[in-house]
């Protein structure tokens, strides 16, 4: 009798295990480039999808420092099924390395309407006549922000930001307080905030009419005379109040609640659209934030880049169809979590309109028509690193602006040529 019971139970157990395998919903892996709080928001949106998804479930995995790891995973043949690509200005490198699947076949087959995405974002994910990712977020960088209270304090109109480069210098001088060789408050620096990144630094150049890269992206053309002037301008701006004084000052910069812009130690800054939410209003809801596009040489060159993220299907994904289903929903108007909760403004215009009360969405709706997309080179990583290196070399007086740019062009161009050569074979 005991034996029979035991047998019965084990058979039941085996059956239920078998059944659960057969009827378990397929699960696809989704790599999220965030941790902690931000990851939770991603996950919430994923849960929403899972609740209504009939055929499969999505598992959101938190992967810090993702770019590096995604490449390795694809190369190793064990990539996630779907991922967020967080560096759209370098998407070409991925495509050239054959690491992602084009979405055009899916789009064509279903006659999927892509018109609701921010055009510049979609354009950024379009290469060689194919679409490779659907825009998830549409962060505009660099946006120009200022502290209205500080403007009032020094007698500037708080609602009127500097429009020209000359204005920028004048405003900055008015707002900077320097005592005994120490900076106590700084008007502006090109070395803090998103404007300090290699990619965003290019805005200064594009505003001046410099063409950093040829149309096909294969030739670096950033060492023209005009470009030399621009680089000199940036370096001079950085050193305007003394290099050592700035370094001592910046060593006290905090993050989050203690970042220099929030604490009023930096009056104007070049940031991103999400920064308005996550960097400012999240910590100080009553902060009086002024915003505009970056000041330009004559005030008329209105330029901004978009650096949002897109959803991609890595090559080797085991569930491309399911990944596509998920991508459609996650980048669609129903997913407003990222915009509403953490200010990662959506890449979908309908979603932006739904969350237009969030300032980052409002900013994108206002300014996305000014986005300029620079052609992408096959070596964006190296290119952006070298821009920063060149800028720093001039700031530290180790090279002249001309030397720095020539060296940059030589280095990056040789990298590009090598990559192109190896691709031909």
């Amino acid at each position, binding site marked *: 009798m005991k034996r029979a019971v035991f047998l019965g139970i084990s058979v039941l157990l085996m059956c239920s295990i078998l059944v659960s395998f057969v009827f378990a919903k397929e699960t696809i892996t989704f790599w999220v480039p965030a941790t902690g709080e931000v990851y939770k928001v991603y996950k919430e949106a994923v849960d929403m999808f899972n609740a209504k998804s009939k055929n499969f479930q999505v598992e959101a995995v938190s992967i810090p420092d993702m770019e590096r790891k995604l490449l390795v995973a694809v*190369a190793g043949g064990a990539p996630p099924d779907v991922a967020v690509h967080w560096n759209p200005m370098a998407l070409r490198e991925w495509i050239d*390395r054959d690491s992602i699947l084009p979405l055009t076949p899916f789009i064509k087959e279903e006659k999927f309407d892509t018109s609701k995405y921010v055009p510049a974002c979609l354009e950024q994910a379009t290469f060689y006549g194919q679409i490779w990712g659907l825009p998830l977020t549409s962060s505009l960088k660099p946006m120009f922000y200022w502290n209205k209270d500080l403007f009032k304090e020094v007698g500037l109109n708080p609602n009127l930001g500097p429009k020209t480069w000359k204005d920028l210098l004048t405003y900055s001088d008015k707002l900077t307080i320097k005592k005994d060789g120490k900076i106590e408050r700084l008007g502006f620096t090109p070395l803090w905030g998103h404007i300090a990144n290699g990619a965003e630094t290019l805005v200064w150049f594009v505003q001046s009419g410099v063409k950093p890269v040829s149309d096909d992206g294969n030739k670096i053309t950033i060492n023209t005379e005009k470009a030399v002037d621009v680089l000199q301008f940036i370096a001079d701006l950085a050193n305007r109040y003394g290099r050592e004084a700035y370094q001592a000052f910046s*060593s006290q910069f905090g993050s989050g609640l203690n970042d220099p812009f929030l604490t009023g130690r930096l009056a104007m800054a070049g940031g991103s659209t999400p920064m308005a939410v996550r960097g400012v209003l999240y910590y100080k809801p009553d902060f009086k934030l002024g915003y505009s596009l970056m000041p330009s040489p004559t005030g008329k060159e209105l330029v901004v880049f978009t650096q949002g993220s897109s959803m991609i299907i890595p090559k080797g994904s085991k569930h491309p169809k399911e990944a596509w289903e998920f991508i459609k929903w996650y980048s669609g108007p129903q997913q407003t979590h990222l915009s509403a909760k953490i200010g990662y403004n959506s890449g979908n215009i309908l979603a932006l309109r739904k969350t237009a009360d969030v300032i980052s969405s409002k900013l994108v709706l206002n300014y996305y028509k000014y986005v300029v997309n620079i052609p992408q080179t096959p070596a964006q990583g190296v290119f952006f690193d070298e821009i920063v290196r060149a800028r720093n070399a001039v700031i530290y007086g180790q090279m002249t602006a001309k030397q720095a740019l020539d060296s940059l062009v030589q280095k990056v161009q040789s990298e590009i040529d090598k990559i192109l050569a190896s691709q031909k074979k």
Partner: protein
Amino acid sequence: MLRKKRILLGLFFISPWLIGFLLFTLGPIIFSFYLSFTDYQVIAAPKWIGIENYRELIKSDPLFWKSLYNTLYYVAFRIPTGILTALSLAILLNRKLKGVTIFRSLFYFPSLISGVVLSVIWLWILAPEFGLLNMVLSFFKLKGPLWLTDPAWAKLAFVIMALWSVGPQMIIFLAGLQDIPEQLYESAHIDGTNWWQDIRYITLPLLTPSIFYNIVVLVIGAFQVFTQAFIMTNGGPVDSTLFYVLYLYNNGFRYFKMGYASSMAWILFIIIFCLTLIQFRFSSWVHYER
């Protein structure tokens, strides 16, 4: 026991190591050697390009030379300061007075702290205005440099930081000191020597094996400086702390030029090997007692 049986038995016992040696050491070394002659960017299969990597490193990569210079600079300062500090502390602590073990532990402890934690701690100590070091200097009316944000001082900051980890070298010296028989000092004192003469004529000569060992080990270690540079400065400012291994790591794991990075690894291996050989060759100053 039969000779054959002993061999089999011996091999049986060391088999884990032997297997591990083939799998985790010899195999990878050979593979790495092969990779150094290829262009391997992870996505595609390795492509044989002969000595192209080496040629490019030596002829057209200024960062290769800069990183090598940075490392040599660091090694040049690290060895003398490290040896002197460890030696001085060891001599001081080579006494049988009460509480000396507590002091020995005290000086040894910081060397146990991990590279990550050291990086974080020293970032704060070396902060330009409110860091401990500059605050102490200003107490003596000196204006400290910007340390990690000043290209002229950044490497020296690393040398200073490394002095805190003097523990292991100090212990080696202590062990060596304890091997020196008391009688030698006693008979010298009969002749009327002072402490400096003690050190110069007895201690140092008899300590040369320990000094030699520490130098060899310290050189090998100093050439591999990485973690603190990776975390604290990431090679900056303006590549003044781009040490050789950091540049290697960047090439291999940031730019995914793994063939290129493998060549760098082999050049490093050769440099360390040669330096060690040279040290052994010119080690006639070491007195071995036996």
